[in-house]
């Protein structure tokens, strides 16, 4: 019985399965590994031979990194790559804070404050989550530039934020909210009713319940969704192209990297270390907080 049970628990039994999994894991890692190796190679080596040959007589160097980070007037821009990393942070941090902060409060309101159109609002938000952001890019850009006029009346004032960091993190906040609200709603709505009602009986109002009960209990959910949003926004290209495309001053790493890859297609001595530099922060976030990140994914997809 025991051997049979053993086999049943592993539908594709051992040696072949292990081999297949190992092969796939290696295949999935080799491309990234190639980039890492390339970014430490000398320019003339990169041009003349493949990166896998460099282990025979290794001549690795940090020069490429020094060039993209600290040498001005090079191919990566007057100030090197660091200002783009700062831009990425200055876009990602406000967008994550606002979408998760406002999203949690909205989720609480939809789950625990009874009002007339609560269900309609909830389904409406869920439907908007399906709207491709392609649909709103151009009108939103126009909103920022000229405001909204209807029959000659201004119903939404012109915001003087075009070309600023706010014109990038604000759209990210707007686009991220529906999904964040939906995911946090799943979590907040599942909090035990008795706890909430006991607090209300003690005279706590919504503000106190939110601050003393909902916020502390939601920390794990907040963490996982914040990581999810962080990676999503940090890695975005489309929103950055549309809202920060005009100026290097607010361009995030991904945008700069896409431009580099296009214009310097073969300058791997710059492109490879720049790409590695841009994925280092998300990789650190990912590996140190993987547990939370996976939990966040599961909260959204598996019921």
């Amino acid at each position: 019985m025991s051997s049979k049970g053993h086999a049943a628990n592993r539908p594709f039994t051992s040696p072949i399965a292990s081999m297949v999994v190992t092969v796939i894991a290696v295949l999935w890692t080799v491309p990234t590994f190639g980039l890492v190796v390339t970014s430490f190679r000398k320019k003339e080596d990169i041009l003349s031979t493949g990166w896998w040959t460099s282990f025979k007589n290794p001549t690795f160097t940090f020069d490429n990194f020094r060039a993209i980070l600290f040498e001005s007037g090079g191919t990566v821009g007057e100030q090197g790559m660091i200002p783009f990393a700062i831009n990425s942070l200055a876009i990602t941090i406000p967008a994550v804070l606002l979408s998760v902060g406002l999203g949690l409060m909205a989720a609480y309101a939809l789950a625990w404050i009874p009002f007339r159109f609560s269900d309609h609002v909830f389904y409406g938000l869920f439907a908007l989550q399906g709207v491709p952001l392609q649909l709103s890019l151009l009108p939103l850009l126009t909103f920022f530039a000229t405001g909204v006029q209807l029959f000659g009346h201004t119903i939404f004032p012109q915001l003087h934020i075009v070309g600023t960091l706010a014109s990038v993190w604000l759209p990210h906040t707007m686009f991220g909210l529906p999904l964040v609200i939906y995911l946090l709603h799943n979590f907040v709505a599942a909090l035990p009713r008795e706890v909430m009602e006991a607090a209300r009986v003690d005279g706590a109002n919504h503000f106190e319940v939110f601050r003393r009960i909902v916020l502390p209990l939601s920390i794990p959910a907040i963490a996982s969704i914040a990581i999810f949003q962080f990676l999503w926004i940090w890695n975005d290209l489309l929103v950055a192209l549309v809202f920060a495309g005009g100026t290097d001053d607010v361009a995030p790493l991904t945008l700069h990297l896409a431009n580099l890859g296009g214009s310097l297609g073969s300058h791997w001595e710059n492109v490879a270390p720049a790409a590695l530099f841009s994925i280092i922060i998300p990789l650190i976030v990912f590996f140190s907080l993987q547990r939370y990140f996976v939990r966040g994914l599961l909260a959204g997809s598996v019921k």
Partner: protein
Amino acid sequence: MITFGSLFASSWPKIFQILAVIVIFFGFYGIAFAAGARIKGKKQNSLAIALFLVPALILVMTGLGIPAIQTFLESFKNADSSQWVGLKNYSNAIHDPDIRLAFINTISWVVICPVIVTALGISLATMLNKMKREAFAKSLIFMPMAISFVGGSLIWNLMYAYQEPDRAQTGLVGQIMLWLHIDVKHLLLWSPWNNLFLMVVYIWGFTGFAMVILSAAIKGIPTEIEEAAQLDGATGIRLFRTITVPMVRTTIIVVLTTAMVGTLKLFDVIHTMTGGNFKTDVLSNRMFDENFVYLNYGRGSALAVLIFLGVIPITYYNIRSLRLERKH
């Protein structure tokens, strides 16, 4: 040489801005909560809704709701949106050979990628289930999820890098073709197969997601069911087909639809790797080019609406299952 002084000079306003957003957000809601806590009775419901829900709704409506309606209207106007042209943008989109190609490519993305990703995901999840070093292998396959598609595209550009056959290859794929005595080709120019090579980047980036989600679902299968099946003599592939797959059906659909929506909207890979050239254009990239390169807003909007139409059945299906779930 860039000095820390010059870096600091250009960065401090941005860092100051981050801090300002944090301070204003917490400051505003700190005061709002302190004041709100004193209010009792009926009034507090409306005040809580105004402070909790309304800001999010305003942002969502300004950012998604109203613009979507506007794009829908734009799609019936001409290039600079000065005149109504009826369905002309849509009929043009069907008759223009370039756009038709983008359409066909998009459909092949939406059909091929989700199927491969899901199939790979469930096979990996099943094989990894209870295997030694499961977490390590999972991490490696999952890692591309953290890498942007721009980064991923560059990583694969390096894999596909091409040199004339008489020179040393600098791309690993070319070198492997050489070892296998296959004619080395510039893979990204080799139409129509270049579409498949672009899809590889998406599959590489998204399989980890499918695997992790499906793996959690498989671990959730009650052991009694497995034991009952194995008493009936089901093992190996048969157990996989008759128990594993049907038991995680809902999750398979979630993964499939997520991947379908993802590929329908996919932009980064095409934009970074080929720019839509060499017959690899897709709707999402074409829509960007129409709007921001050719400045034909009418046609760009029509393409955005077409992408939306592709998403509607999936959203509808999801809302329906959500309602069913809420009733239970």
